[in-house]
């Protein structure tokens, strides 16, 4: 029974993590990217660090979102209970009953060519000593034809 409870809760956290990953995918798909304009920050990549490799590796950039929050907020991006929903008129009798877990969101943008990038978004969280990860991938092409 304990295992069932754990799996039910883990499944719920994975849904919330998926939404968190989806939000970043939405961001990169919805940011305007026009020919002749600077590449939006979200889609920028950097040359690989270190000496040149043969064959050369693609330009990429990794962004890790793992904010340090004031306790009792967990470190990372919170999954579960919304601490901004506690004000009168926004909360209910059930607010703050869900256990909050901190997640780390990693976004990797890899350049395919001047008009297209590949994006991988991973959300990782720990629950009861185990690590869980949810990932989404997408391609983003420039808006100009």
């Amino acid at each position, binding site marked *: 029974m304990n295992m069932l409870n754990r799996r039910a809760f883990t499944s*719920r956290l994975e*849904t*919330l993590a998926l939404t*968190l990953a989806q939000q970043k995918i939405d961001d990169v798909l*919805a940011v305007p990217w026009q020919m002749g304009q600077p590449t939006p920050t979200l889609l920028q990549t950097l040359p690989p660090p270190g000496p040149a490799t043969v064959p050369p590796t693609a330009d990429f950039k990794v962004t890790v979102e793992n904010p340090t929050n004031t306790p009792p907020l967990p470190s990372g991006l919170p999954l579960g209970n919304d601490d901004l929903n506690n004000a009168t008129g926004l909360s*209910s009798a059930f*607010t703050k009953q*869900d*256990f909050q877990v901190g997640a780390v969101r990693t976004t990797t943008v890899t350049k395919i060519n001047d008009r297209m990038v590949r994006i991988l978004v991973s959300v990782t969280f720990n629950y009861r000593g185990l690590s869980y990860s949810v990932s989404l991938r997408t391609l983003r092409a420039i808006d100009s034809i």
Partner: protein
Amino acid sequence: MVELLAAAAVFGSITVALMLYTSTSARMVGRNLATNHSHENIRVASQRIMDTLHDAASPFVLVNFDGTNYSDATTSATADVDLYTSRNIGTRANGVRFYLLAGGPYKLTQTALPTTTDLRFDFSSGGQVPYQPIVGDRIVIPLISREFQITMVVTAPTPSAPTGVVRINDTNGVGFQLTVGTGNCTPAYFYRKSAFTVYQNQLRFHKTFEGAAKADFIVVRNDITSPKPFGLLYDSATAPSSDGRQLRMSLETTDGSYSNRAFGSSTTTLVGVVPQRTLPLQLNSTD
């Protein structure tokens, strides 16, 4: 006598142990059900909301519903910062409205002069009329990059007579001459206001959020316990307005009927930020 007392003690101990076991089991089953029910609500609600909001063709506008009236919410930035986007959240509301593509492309079937306000379209599609224009819908004519609101349906299309006439809100007319004839084709797209609202623990979807039809809705999920889950995002706490491009929702759900025991961790709160996926937005107006 001693044997009877011993037997009673043993029997009593076993009974207490069994009761403790079944009570604990029942509680764990209840808690599991509560977790699963709130999880199910969030999954269905999030899929429906995101699927619909991604298709939104206009900026988001928050709506307040007090049980009788729907009114546009006057929102402003607050000091609350959304951790997912680092943007400030505006004052919350229990509804959000937006336009969705309702019909089209349909072609103009009668030449319109720059001063014409009544436009005639062929609304047929495969021998049927899947879209019926109503007052409040918006027309976008990509050829001239203009959008109008329908103020009157002069002639409603039917399957037997699929040509309909609609009146636009610009009393000066369409502004260009749109000639119909060989080699000329002017298509138009039609958009309709839709909305999500939360009231009486229900997440509701209003497919047509216009006039008396606002009161018609389908219940997406029950057991929604956050009274005002929707907010717009602002660039700062002092930003005068929001671009309406990102909707923040903080949807909280608890199983309030079947496993209503207020177990710890039985609530699920989905925090998400959803933008429109259409770029640029097909409609500039939010009216």
